[in-house]
């Protein structure tokens, strides 16, 4: 992990309330898909943990939804040419094993962005089917990026485009046809719970990336813990954010 004074290349809106920030770390860093970074926003005491979406040489793109003061300030105060302080890469990331050829990727909301990094990393090496859920047509973004390396099924809550329902439902309907060897997922907790239920007798590894309010982002402060099914706690920032779904209580 490195503390980097990065250069903002672009910070633009890509869907309703969703922004894409690209910065140059000035040197190539070893960033895996599913890892995240801690971004300093002005003089706020806490950094914002945001998943890496794309890595292109020394250029890193993260996408975020306007949620509170910090993300709003990140959207309004950072422009091309500004510097932004970032600690990265953090967390474990997604790993797909050699024998796992067919990868199902299931995302909802801003959970699609860390999955895009996985689609990019394994695109061309694996067969990837992506099932991405959005509120409505206006919320859909980065469609072209996903289609480059995956067969994409879009699901919307209101049916305004694609499958009318959730990403997990769309995935379940397609399960027998695609027959995945492994599943990667990220999204709201109800979505992950539905996925856990849907996959409980399938005998296929399912890896989920979790989100939690963080302090340090590196595993020291024990703020962002999640419950494990064995009764212990895991640190989302350091032991995760990616966990095998059976390991964690959702």
């Amino acid at each position, binding site marked *: *992990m*490195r*503390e980097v004074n990065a250069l903002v290349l672009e910070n633009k809106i890509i869907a309703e309330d969703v922004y894409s920030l690209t910065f140059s770390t000035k040197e190539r860093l070893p960033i895996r898909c599913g890892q995240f970074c801690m971004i*300093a926003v002005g003089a*706020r*005491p*806490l*950094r914002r943990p945001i998943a890496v979406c794309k890595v292109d040489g020394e250029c890193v793109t993260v996408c975020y939804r306007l949620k509170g003061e*910090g993300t709003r300030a990140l959207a309004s105060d950072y422009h091309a040419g500004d510097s932004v*302080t970032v*600690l990265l890469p953090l967390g474990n990331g997604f790993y797909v094993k050699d024998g796992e050829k067919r990868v199902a990727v299931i995302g909802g909301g801003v959970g699609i962005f860390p999955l895009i990094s996985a689609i990019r990393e394994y695109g061309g090496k694996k067969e990837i089917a992506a099932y991405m859920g959005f509120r409505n047509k206006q919320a859909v973004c980065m469609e072209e990026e996903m289609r480059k390396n995956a067969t994409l099924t879009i699901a919307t809550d209101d049916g305004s485009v694609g499958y009318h329902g959730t990403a997990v439902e769309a995935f379940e309907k397609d399960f027998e046809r695609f027959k995945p060897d492994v599943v990667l997922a990220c999204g709201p907790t109800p979505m992950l719970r539905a996925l856990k239920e849907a996959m409980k007798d399938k005998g296929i590894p399912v890896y989920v990336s979790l989100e*939690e*309010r*963080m*302090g*340090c*982002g*590196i*595993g*020291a*402060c*024990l*703020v*962002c*813990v*999640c419950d494990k099914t064995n009764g*212990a*706690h895991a640190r989302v920032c*350091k032991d995760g954010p990616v966990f095998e779904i059976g390991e964690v209580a959702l």
Partner: protein
Amino acid sequence: MANLSVTLCGVELKNPVIPASGTFGFGREFDEIYDISCLGGVATKGLTPEMRLGNPVPRIAESRGVILNAVGLQNPGVESFIKNDLEWLKHKTRVVANVAGKTLEDYESICARLDGLVDFIELNISCPNVKSGGMAFGIKPESVEEVTRVAKSALKKTPLIVKLSPNVESIARNAQAAEKGGADCLSLINTLTGMAIDIERRKPIIANNTGGVSGAGIKPIAVRMVYEAAHAVSLPIIGMGGITCAEDAIEFLMAGATALQVGTQNFTDPLACPKIIEGLNAWCDRHGVKNIGELTGTLKLN
């Protein structure tokens, strides 16, 4: 190059900067970012006799210039610390073992276990005392004195730091109570109790409802309390509360502190501690200060 070393209770620190308990784990994670042997010491995550899982999440919130936390003393227990982390940390720097308990017996046993193994024991007395209806040990001067005395009686070798809570009637009286109980040193301030509300949900952001407030916004309160404590006792003081830079740290020294702890700023900037050490050196050089210890208690009131 100024001499930044300070001596606390006969123990020399290479500089006065110590990351505060709860913000730095046992040092291993930050050591991946910089070599923590540059630090004056490390105050460990609060240790209890048995492992603790802590509070439900969310455990943290941000407000203007401050954060709130309610981790609830999650820690692997003192035996795990001794077995897995202590030797590693001792090779890096001075070890300030922060300890907590629910009963006087807890404090006694954990102090006895760590005596002679660490450089300092720092007593977290902001925990609820289960035998007195949950009121924290650190609130009333009588219980501050009692818990200090019990801890001190278990310590034959290691100096005892008592970490004072600011949520009290008189910081001076509690400082005196700790001194009377046998403390070798005081550290202050611990966090102030606060609340932050998510107005959309009409609920506190933190699962525990209230949390400890820390960060830049509490610094004036902390400096005032360090000043008051320093003038109430003859013990050395470790000052903390909202230190973000060397200039903040110098305020605490002038108010009466001999050493310093840096907490929340480790989250804001993971390189905060080494930057503050560098900044202290530069400030001393600019002001012709040869030994940083010369600054302690040099405040002149208007």
